[in-house]
């Protein structure tokens, strides 16, 4: 049995806004029958204000698909179309107090139904731009298609490269066999073979200049500010557990934190760092390593 949150169960047992909306003027049909999840979202939009006055769903799918549909309709009712489109799949998952990694695609489906319905309202046809593959990395919910595309686009050759670009394999490492198989397949297309001993791609030079012009388009200072904002947003949770975290330094894609109070030496510290890492990575749209300050390179601490 999946480890569903109480909120997921509650929305599954008592779904809100089930059924088609009467006088709907926008419909979004998305999903995949082979996967066993499909959703029709109907909206009643006020043509003058573009406010969603009513939303309803019909879902063929599992418990979390029904709960995600229910959550989506609750979130978007009363929003303008523009504001509704800002709702991310993470917002849906957060509303439900989290979804198991295998089930995150249910929240993605919710967001896509919304895009499809808004397109339908504007008289446009929505076409999906992503394909979903078998889930490879369960720690970070990364599927085979994303890994394969990333390997191909960036000419990746090692498991470390894949973890660096997609996060897949960066957690418990159980999926490394699956990642190696994808690498072997893509490399074989180019007539190359997978070499488990190949050196990972050189890390990007991390001088302040390259950082300023980095992929995120942010200056280093902007980046550090964003990181601090994320840490500030997590701080109340840490303080609830009588702990705290302090930003010590940012070197390239490594963020060094000093865990204080109950967090320091806590067995959960590594997990907490992992959670912070995920938040910062999402916020910056770039893979970031979060490390305890004890990992700071010697020259930094001594110099």
């Amino acid at each position, binding site marked *: 049995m999946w480890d569903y949150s109480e909120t997921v169960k509650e929305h599954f047992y008592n779904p809100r806004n089930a059924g088609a909306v009467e006088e709907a003027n926008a419909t979004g049909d998305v999903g995949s029958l082979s996967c*066993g999840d499909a959703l029709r979202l109907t909206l009643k939009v006020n043509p003058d204000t573009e406010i969603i006055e009513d939303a309803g769903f019909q879902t063929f799918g599992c418990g979390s698909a029904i709960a995600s549909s229910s959550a989506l309709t609750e979130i978007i009712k009363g929003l303008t179309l523009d504001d509704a489109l800002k709702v991310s799949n993470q917002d849906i998952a957060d509303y439900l107090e989290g979804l198991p990694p295998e089930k995150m695609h249910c929240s993605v489906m919710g967001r896509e139904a919304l895009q499809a319905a808004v397109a339908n309202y504007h008289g446009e046809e929505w076409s999906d731009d992503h394909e979903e593959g078998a889930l490879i990395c369960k720690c970070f919910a990364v599927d085979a298609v994303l890994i394969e595309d990333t390997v191909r686009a960036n000419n990746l050759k090692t498991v470390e490269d894949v973890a660096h670009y997609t996060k897949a394999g960066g957690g418990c490492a159980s999926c490394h066999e699956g990642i190696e198989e994808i690498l072997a397949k893509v490399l074989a297309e180019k007539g190359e073979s997978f070499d488990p001993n190949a050196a990972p791609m050189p890390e990007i030079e991390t001088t302040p200049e390259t950082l300023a012009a980095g992929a995120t388009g942010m200056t280093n200072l902007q980046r550090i500010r964003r990181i601090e904002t994320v840490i500030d947003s997590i701080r109340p949770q840490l303080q609830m557990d009588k702990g705290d975290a302090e930003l010590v330094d940012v070197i390239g894609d490594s963020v060094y934190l000093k865990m204080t109070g109950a967090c320091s030496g806590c067995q959960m510290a590594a997990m907490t760092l992992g959670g912070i890492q995920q938040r910062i990575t999402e916020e910056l749209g770039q893979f970031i390593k979060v490390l305890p300050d004890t990992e700071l390179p010697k020259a930094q601490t001594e110099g």
Partner: protein
Amino acid sequence: MKGIYLDNNATTMVDPDVVETMLPYFTEQFGNPSSMHAFGNKVGRALKQARQQVQNLLGAAHDSEIIFTSCGTESDSTAILSALRAQPERNEIITTVVEHPAVLSLSKNLEKEGYKVHYLKVDNKGRLDLDEYKRLLSERVAVVSVMWANNETGTLFPVLEMAELASAAGVMFHTDAVQAVGKVPMNLQDTKIDMLSISGHKLHAPKGIGVLYLRRGVRYRPLLRGGHQERGRRAGTENVASIIALGKACELAREHMEFENTTVADMRDRLEQGILAAVPHSFVTGDPDNRLPNTANIAFEYIEGEAILMLLNKQGIAASSGSACTSGSLEPSHVMRAMDIPYTAAHGSVRFSLSRYNSMEEIEKVIEAVPPIMAQLRKLSPYWDENDPVEDPEKAFAPAYA
């Protein structure tokens, strides 16, 4: 409220008699059967008795044909890999598309290592085409591995006949019989089956114990080498308490064989008829005329299995489903797909598997609980309109792939 457990093809309750029989082997009878002293000696004799109890249930000619393993999966892997290693000149395998992952995943992996695997297809009732099978048998085939009974539908394969055909062609025959043992009477000494897998927890013994039946004289290479346990055919200190439990469970299974095929079969039939009569757009999958007495697999159209299971579970009813979502995979059960069950039904397939511990009273409760659950979920389904499916469902709702 006490739950109603209808998921016995997944695992079974350990019989209280079995528990009682095994308990002393954790405490006062803790000896290693290999030891010379009295502590070990008694345990050795108990193991011998357990081996005979398994032998009796299978109708094997010799008790030395019973090799204790850790599980059904280990037995399957041991059998198939042994056949390949013992006959390096043969590099083909014949199996079926509906095998358990214990055989299917291994086969897929062996393909990567260069072996040629033939997967026999099934028709829409899950039956094999024996002509196709006969054509594939050749001196290139190292082993045939075909399940005796399918875990999802209970459909029985004609393994006795298939073993005869394999034998005539000089090919080894293995069957994964984890679902059949204890429900289908067997007398292996009168068959051409060379190897057979058992899993203890499917017949009221604990988890973590299995058996590989290995006919005397069949060429064999161990998976685990080490000590002399199991006559050197499966090294590793014996899981004594569980072996003794499995022996007892086999004795009890023999006593209840008749009961399984009459009383349990009657409960299954009542459950199936009751549900089909009350829920429109539902049907039995597999081959109803030729299956295990305890299994009913019913597909409920236009709804999804995990949602069904969650609502059943809320009422204390345990079953399982072939939907993609229950396993976190992207496709519904390979068994449903192999039978060409449409997606709108395959995802809604629910397996009810009974045991001798169920009662007709429980069955009636389930028959009452099921129809409202299906109605509740269909109300949410985009394929459903009031009391019937929408007209031309697959056209009326054809979502963009996402």
